């Protein structure tokens, strides 16, 4: 009898495992929860990039209309990959797109923008990386959607792909603009 029971054990184990896979498939492991979601964006003061106007110097500049804030750096390979998409987002002109460069040197950032195109409305330069920490940035690139009241509505981790833009971000921005 024990033999019978023991031989059923493997079946039981795989059944439990399969249950987890079914649940697991419905989740996106790359989606990291942000503690700041649905919170007002942290107040900050930033420097602009020398020789590039207009600068993003104050968190107040982000309120009043739905906006995208993209954290990037010239050192980040995924940002290079993402850049053509950002250029396209700017060309579509759905909402202002602001950039915050972090862990970077201003000269390097400027060269990066000169080489790959400059899709940003305002660019801030996070000298101390404090702002990136306050936004809870875990890597680059990361993009935040901020509503009219200055509340963070969405955080996108990693390069924005065409599908992300068309299926998620753009509809969300349009909803926020209507609402």
């Amino acid at each position, binding site marked *: 009898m024990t033999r019978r029971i023991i*031989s059923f054990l493997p079946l039981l184990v795989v059944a439990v495992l399969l249950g987890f896979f079914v649940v697991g498939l419905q*989740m996106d*492991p790359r989606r990291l929860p942000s503690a700041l979601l649905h919170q007002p964006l942290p107040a900050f003061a930033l420097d602009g990039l020398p020789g590039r106007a207009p600068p993003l110097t104050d968190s107040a500049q982000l309120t009043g209309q739905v906006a995208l804030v993209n954290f990037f750096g010239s050192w980040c390979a995924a940002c290079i990959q993402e850049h053509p998409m950002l250029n396209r987002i700017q060309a579509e002109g759905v909402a202002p797109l602001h950039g915050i460069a972090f862990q970077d040197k201003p000269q390097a950032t400027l060269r990066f923008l000169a080489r790959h195109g400059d899709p940003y409305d305002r660019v801030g330069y996070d000298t101390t990386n404090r702002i990136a920490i306050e936004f809870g940035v875990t890597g680059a690139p990361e993009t935040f959607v901020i509503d009219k009241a200055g509340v963070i509505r969405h955080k996108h981790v990693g390069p924005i792909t065409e599908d992300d833009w068309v299926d998620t971000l753009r509809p969300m921005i349009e909803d926020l603009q209507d609402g």
Partner: protein
Amino acid sequence: MIPEIGHFALVLALGVAVVQAVVPMIGAQRGNLAWMEVARPASVALVLCIGVAFAALTHSYVVSDFSVTNVFMNSHTDKPMLYKISGVWGNHEGSLLLWILILAVFSLAVSVFGGNLPPALRARALAVQAMITTGFLLFILFTSNPFARLDPAPFDGRGLNPLLQDPGLAFHPPMLYLGYVGFSMAFSFAIAALIEGRVDAAWARWVRPWTLIAWVFLTFGIALGSWWAYYELGWGGYWYWDPVENASFIPWLAGTALLHSAIVAEKRDTLKSWTILLAIITFSLSLLGTFLVRSGVITSVHAFATDPTRGVFILLLLAITVVGSFSLYAWRAPQMKGGGVFAPVSREGTLLLNNVLLSTASATVLLGTLYPLFADALQLGKVSVGPPFFNSVFVPLMIPMLILMGVGPMLAWKRGDALGAVRRLWTALVATAAVVLGTWVLAGGSVVNAGAALGMGVGAWLLLATMVEWAERVRLFRVPPRDSLRRATNLPRSAYGMTVAHVGTALLVMGVVGNTAWKSETVQVMRPGETIPIGPRALVFEGAERMPGPNYDAIRGRLRLIDGDGHTIAIMSPEKRQYTSPPMATTEAAIHTTGVHDYYAVIGDPSPGDGAGAFVTRFYYEPFVPLLWYGALLMGLGGLVSLSDRRHRVGVPRRARAAQGASSTAAATTEAPARA
């Protein structure tokens, strides 16, 4: 036109696979030989159909037919021919096509070489094999059609991920797949045996070579992948416990256990139920590996192509396979009769313990790999499990196993003499102690190095004990050298296979331990003319220049490796490449090897702020890494040597039977018992 022929061939293959899955199975149940024999022509037809499909896709890649979506997404006219061809399996759809091609070729091998198998067992095994093929064909046709067209055809393709444009990686996926798919044979035989309700030594003798082939390919495949990561990714490491690496390592561990328990099943006619279970588990883990890599349930730096719809389909395949096979096991296994008994201290005993340790290791790695998924599903938060977990749980499991590996082969079957084995191993024991002490003193004698010295000792123990075991077999120094030589030439290949593979394991262990303990790494900004020490040598930075490549633009550094007296040992030229399609940067490390140690240099970005011509450079001193590659190579070779053993060779039993004539039917039945 050609892609449509390929597509059509796949649909045809599905029909053939269904026939092969159903007809021989019914035939075997009813004892109808004609129905059973359908499996053989069907397996030929299946290989032809899938072969045509594979050839059609390869053709589309070779001629760069961008009207095929798959080619457009993964190829480019500028790509060298080798990578156009390797691009066929460098993507999801093509790799699945390769998967089923290999699956079909294995089936064909069974129907061609399986002439001396009992017809019912062969028919059932081939039918199970065809069921797996059917599942994957459905998967390809419904979710991953490699022949989908694009209209209008784009002018040029998007290119293959440049990280994958590498000779090491061109052959890594096919090797892994040969391993994964190879385990399907053991699985099919296990299911066939469960349906028949009997397992005997002949069954185990059939399963062993197939498991061995799969294991050899998987070993080479994992080693190739590790080697690729080492020289291509530019991190100076060879193993990261990344989910995708684990996905191939988990079945490898289970497969290694299967390999050894099949020996017991064959030689001693025991551990049969366990061997069957392992065969099912190993293949299920191979499927799981495919699921993890292809579905994206777990994030990985390797997740090149993930798609949830495909995930659902693979999960379904996995579920049908494992629920079906484990239910069958639960139903049938209790009826299986146990074979010979054995004492705890015996060859069987150590092999069983080896099995327990390997299976535990496999389960542990699986747990670590899936833990983020469990935690996420149970709302315990987002976690990632990294090398510290794996190192701290895996190593303690491996140490007793490695020590045991030295003793096990010295023990007799059924009842071993532990004291006698230790007495015969005393030379190895003394030499191991000397190695531990010597390493410790050479490394500086500090407490920190004691662990490393003991680790090297474990590797040395296995190496020495394996050598002693071989010396014992040929009675080296006990009988005249000529007699030893005669004994050495008469040893079966399988014995040599074990010796070579275990020596390989020992080298691998020493490579890992030595590298972990004494590796060093420096990152700095260097101006031309500057020198930085690396291990016992030093590197002089002589500058860097732009170098255009066929489909990339590179910065190539020039570094001179010098010894203590300033003599040049080698010129090293690491590169940083910016590929054009797709736009992506890669590092090409420069590695100078002495055969025991590696000097490893990576060039980073220019740093004009620190002076003209200044660059960021990273140097790694990688002691003992080459031992890893020798070790893995020897392990695989050991498997091949064992595979060439007389017992496994095709037709041997039949020839033996013919030569001995009708008088020695006893000998013939031990080779291929006629049960049908």
